[in-house]
Each structure stands twice: as C-alpha cells, then as structure tokens.
C-alpha cells in the first residue's frame, strides 16, 4: 500500500468521526433547540443549515404523530431518544465474530455472505478501512472522471454547498410530515449524489462502497440529483440483516430528476424484525419521494422484508410533461411484523404515465397493507396509470389489506387498477412435496414466482440475493 493510500485511509477515519473526543460525544436523551445547535456545531455546518434545522424543529414541535396507518405499536417517546451519538470505537465493538449473536451469523451463512463481510455487517472491529481503501479509491477515480459526485451528505454540505442548499428539502419539504420534519431537524448523515448533464453514471452506485454507511444512524438523509439527460442507478441497503441499536428509523430520501434524466432507485430493506413475538424490532418510518421534470423517469424498486413496523411510500411527483413514474414492490411480513407500504403517483404534467406493481406476502401472524394514491391533476391531460396490487397469504393467521386512493380531475386521464388476493394452497404444496421438495422449499418457490414481475426490475445481482432473502425470511412459516 502506498503512502498516499495510507494517508487517505487516515483521512477517511477522521471524516467518519472516529478520532474526535469520544467522552463528550453522546447527548443525553431529549430534543430541544440546543440539541440541534450541538449537532450542527459538531458537524461544523454553515449558519444557513442550522437555521434550516431549527425551522424544521419548530414545525415538528407543532405536529402530532400520524395514526392513520394500519399498524399498531407502543408509543414512541421522542424525549427519551438520544439524538446524537458517535459511532462506537473499535475497542467498544465486538472483537471477533465469536462475540456476535450466533443466530445472526447463521443467517449470514444461509445468505452466503463471505466471512470478512459478515464481520463488517456485524460491527466487528476489523481493519476494513485499509482493506477497502484501494477499492474505494479506484471507484472514486472512475466516478470523478465522469464528473459524478458521490459522497456523504455531511461532506457535500462542505464541498458542494450550493447544490445542497438549492435542493435539500425541495422534494420533501420540512413540514411534509411528522417524521420528515423530525429528520430535517436532526438528520445524522446519508448519501449525496450529483450526476452532471448528459452523463450516464458508469456504474451502479451502492451505499456499500461508502465506508461510513454503517454509522449514518437512525435519521438518514439522502439527496440524489440527476441533471438534464443524465442517468443513474442507485442501490440502497443490503440483504443481510443489519445490526442496529436504534429502534426508531426515520429516513428521508429526495430524488431530483431534471429534464430527460432517469433515476432508478433500488432498495433491499432487511432491518431486524424482532423475535418471533415481535420484541425488539426496528420501526421504519421513511419518506421517499422523487420529482420528475419534463421527459424524466423515476423508478422505485423495493424489497422489504425487515423491520417490526414499516411505514413507507416511495412516491413520484410527475411535474414535467411526458414524465414517467414506476413503483415495483415486494413487501413480506412474517411472525408479528406489520407493514403499511405503497406509493403515491402525483400526475401534474401532460401525458405523464405511471406503473405500480405491488406484491404483498403475509405469513405467520403478520399484517401487510398496501396503501397507494394515484392523483390526476386538472392539467394532466392524457395521463395514464396502471396499478396491479397482489396479495399472497401463507397460513390462516395473517392479514392483507389494500387501500387504493384514486383521484382523477382530468377527464382524459386513464386509470387502471387490478387487485388479487390468493393463498398458497394445500394442493400446491402437496404437488411440490409429491415431486420431492420439502414444504419450505415449495413455499419459497411459490413466493418467488409470485414476486417475479418485481424481481426482474432489480439489478441482476440483487435479484438473486432477493430470492434467497425471501427463503430465509419465510423460515418457520410452514409446517
């Protein structure tokens, strides 16, 4: 390793915040303006961002928690959460995989994750920084050659303040909803992407390559800007269950898709769902939204298998004429998990079109709801939407719900909605078992078949992993 690489590695460590004064770096629980000032100061933020956060906090203080979702969970006490804590130091982390929950390791093995990656995922104190520096460096050089900016949002605030200032909150305003306001006030870190005019991003961008990803905390903030006629595919998350000590997650993702640009955003979400009784799982309350200008295209693909409670509606505002929005979703709930997820397609421009394919799978005693809004505004002449919403039930103790909202204020708009509910039938299982498969293999094959239309939208590698992930997530759902 060259001296240059080592220097970079040390720099990175600093950027990720490992070498600051650890003693004073965790705040007592509770949220007030001083806490926000502290966070902003810690991150050496400019004045305008502090003001921006404070305004969000004031808005949030006036808001009440939404209760319309089809989920039930114990009250979250926002004054009992600590809103700033430094990542654990190397000494505080597990020193080897032997110190990690064996069940977590067993899951990693089932998913075929290599040993060194297991260590990173489980938060083991390994020297990943040095290992990955060369990979990351080549990766960064290649992106820099194309003019693509890809860094943490904290870095972006320092390096590209004009872009951040122009677009932060432009798609998801601070007052949008309770959790978005909270996130705006206290967001920890997240990703920033800018693709210049006419550039096709030379590779799929994955948070995996961002070393400090593991420490972005519970209030993640992502901003992706695709300038005119550019193209980017972004992968978020990981099929392996991520260890996290924070129960509440309230992320915000904003996509800005300028004229003729295209953003493809794929997510695999597998946060800890809690044990079979639902204890200890993550609450995932996320606001994801994209704004599509003229001829632009935004495509959301998500595979949601984790978290105890999911509340998430990746949406598209189709402002520009001829813009296109897509939403492909697989949401699987097992045991005591609850999900209320779907999308919003807001058609503002002429000849805008959107497609929604949602596949909900419920097993165990879980509850799975699709909630979707398709709105055709008066100016959306010639707009089209196609929605297909399928539910699959496994066993007889789970539930599936569909809440489609359709608002059409333009007579030339066309909206199609199809919905089905089916069960993995005893006859299907019997056929598979008579042909030699065990029940679990059979269920996973049937479920994968059910999800095929969504999986084919995922990047190749993700698609294979997603299939495997469903298999592991469904364990214990039959027999």
């Amino acid at each position: 390793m060259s001296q240059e690489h080592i220097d970079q590695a040390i720099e990175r460590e600093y950027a990720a915040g490992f070498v600051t004064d650890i003693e004073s770096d965790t705040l007592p629980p509770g949220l007030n303006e001083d806490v926000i000032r502290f966070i902003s100061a810690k991150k050496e933020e400019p004045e305008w961002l502090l003001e921006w956060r404070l305004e969000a906090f004031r808005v949030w203080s006036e808001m009440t928690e939404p209760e319309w979702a089809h989920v039930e969970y114990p009250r979250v006490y926002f004054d009992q959460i600590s809103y700033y804590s430094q990542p654990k130091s190397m000494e505080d982390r597990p020193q080897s995989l032997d110190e990690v929950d064996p069940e977590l390791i067993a899951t990693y093995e089932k998913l075929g994750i290599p040993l060194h990656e297991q260590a990173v995922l489980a938060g083991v104190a390994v020297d990943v920084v040095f290992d990955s520096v060369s990979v990351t460096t080549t990766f960064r050089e290649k992106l820099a050659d194309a003019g693509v900016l890809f860094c943490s949002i904290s870095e972006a605030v320092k390096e590209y303040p004009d872009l951040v200032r122009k677009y932060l909150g432009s798609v998801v305003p601070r007052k949008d909803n309770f959790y978005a306001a909270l996130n705006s006030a206290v967001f920890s870190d997240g990703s920033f992407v800018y693709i210049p005019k006419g550039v096709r991003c030379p590779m799929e961008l994955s948070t995996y390559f961002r070393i400090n990803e593991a420490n972005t905390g519970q209030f993640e903030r992502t901003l992706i800007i695709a300038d005119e006629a550019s193209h980017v595919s972004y992968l978020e998350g990981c099929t392996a269950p991520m260890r996290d000590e924070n129960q509440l997650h309230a992320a915000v993702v904003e996509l800005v898709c300028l004229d003729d640009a295209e953003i493809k955003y794929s997510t695999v979400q597998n946060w800890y769902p809690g044990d079979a009784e639902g204890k200890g799982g993550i609450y995932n309350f996320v606001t994801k939204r994209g704004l599509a200008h003229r001829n632009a295209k935004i495509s959301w693909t998500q595979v949601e298998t984790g978290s105890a409670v999911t509340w998430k509606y990746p949406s598209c505002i189709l402002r520009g004429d001829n813009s296109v929005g897509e939403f492909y979703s697989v949401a699987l709930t097992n045991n005591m998990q609850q999900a209320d997820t779907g999308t919003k397609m807001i058609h503002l421009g002429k000849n805008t079109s959107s497609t929604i394919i949602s596949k909900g799978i419920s097993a165990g005693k879980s509850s799975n709801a699709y909630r979707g809004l398709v709105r055709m505004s008066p100016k959306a002449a010639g707009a089209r939407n196609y929605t297909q919403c399928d539910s699959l039930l496994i066993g007889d103790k789970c539930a599936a719900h569909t809440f489609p909202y359709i608002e059409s204020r333009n007579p030339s708009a066309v909206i199609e909605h199809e919905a089905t509910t089916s069960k993995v039938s005893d006859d299907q299982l019997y056929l598979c078992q008579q042909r030699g498969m065990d029940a679990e293999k059979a269920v996973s094959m049937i479920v994968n078949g059910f999800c095929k239309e969504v999986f084919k939208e995922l990047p190749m590698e993700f698609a294979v992993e997603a299939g495997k992930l469903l298999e592991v997530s469904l364990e214990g759902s039959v027999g």
Partner: protein
Amino acid sequence: MLKIDNLHAQVDGKDILKGLSLEVKAGEVHAIMGPNGSGKSTLGHVLAGRPGYTASAGTVSFMGQDVLQLETEERAHLGIFLAFQYPVEIPGVSNMEFLKASVDAMREHRSLEPLDTVSFMKQAREASKAVDLDPAFLKRGVNEGFSGGEKKRNELMQMMLLEPTLGILDETDSGLDIDALQVVANGVNAMRSPERSFILVTHYQRLLDYIEPDFVHVLSDGRIVKSGDKSLALELEEKGYGWIEDEVA
C-alpha cells in the same frame, strides 16, 4: 415392491378404504377399475401421502419401508410418483424451474449434485418432445392456462424426468382425445422395465388397449372385490360393474 395389507383410510372423517389388500411386484402393471366413489383416487392419495388422507388401520410397505410413517416428500424420494387427476396451477413459477427443483430434490436425496442447467434443459426438452408438448410450455407457469390434455401430458413429462420406481396414474386417460391417449400410453410403455411398476387408476377399458396390464382389479366400496387378467377389463366394458357388485353381495 409394494404390499398393502387390510388398509383402512378416512377422508374428512369418512371411511373410504375399508380393508384393501394389494401386492405389486417389480415390473408389474396393475389396473384399478371401479365405479365412482369406490375409493380409486383415495388409494393413490393415501399412498402418496396427501394431507387429510389418513390411514386408520392396516399396513403399506414399499421397498421394505413402512410408507405410512413417512412424509409426503420422503415417499417421493423412495420413488412413489402420482400423476394427478386434476393438476394444480402454480402461477409465476415456470415449468422449467419447477421441474429442476423437483429433479434436484430427488438427486439431493440420492446424495447427487444438482444437475447443471444445460444438461437439465436438454433432458427437459427431450421429455417435452416425447409427450408431444411444445418446449415453449417449459417457460410457462406450472399448468397455468394449460388445457386438460396439456396438463395430463405435463404430468407424464414430470414422471419421465423423475424416473420413479412406482408410477401411479390417477385417471390420466380421462378427458384425453385418442391421439393424446396414445401419447400417454407410449410414454408409459417406454418407461416399463423389470424394475419399475405402475398402478393405473381408470374408468375405461380403452386405456388398457394401449397399455397392457398384468392384473386388473375391481374396487367397490373401499375393497378389491375381484381380480383377474386383462380379460376382466373387457368383461367389465361389456357388462358394467353391476354384476360384480351383485356377485359380492
């Protein structure tokens, strides 16, 4: 190979099989005939291990094992194959995936590696040709939108790929036109061997014109009431089941 002794079985708490005994030796073809409701299909499902079909008395041994103690898939691993009368659809799962998963499950049981995709595709295409099914069917969802005849040929194709020791055909001939019937018969005849046996459950003598059975049994009210060679089937065709039932009574 298969020995059924005094088998009693219930479906939904109702007695269907009431003391059925039957022995099938390696290489033999047995036809089971009988009026509606006599328990023909139940016999196939009890042997294959369909949930809800419970044996209340009697024994079934296959290849020296107590079949009634085994899980459905374990019976399949032993080589029991049931061609369904009403094959079920599995939307979204391609026939090819389904077949590969089946073949690999069987191979795993024999401690063999999964078949590589290329050799599997080759075998699958050959099998589809043998049952006169366009290879395009391999890409379609399992039985999804198949006609009655296509479903039956699909069952036969599965049997060819899985190479069972005992093939049970549950009214595979019903609803088939004469050409399709011939295809099914040719398939079964090609698979006949000194190590492999068949039980043909059928209503009609017609199938037995094409697949010549070693034995014909008449099932009535859950028991075998008459056994004979293939001439018994012809006699049934001529006289119906009434005379046997009268004879038994």
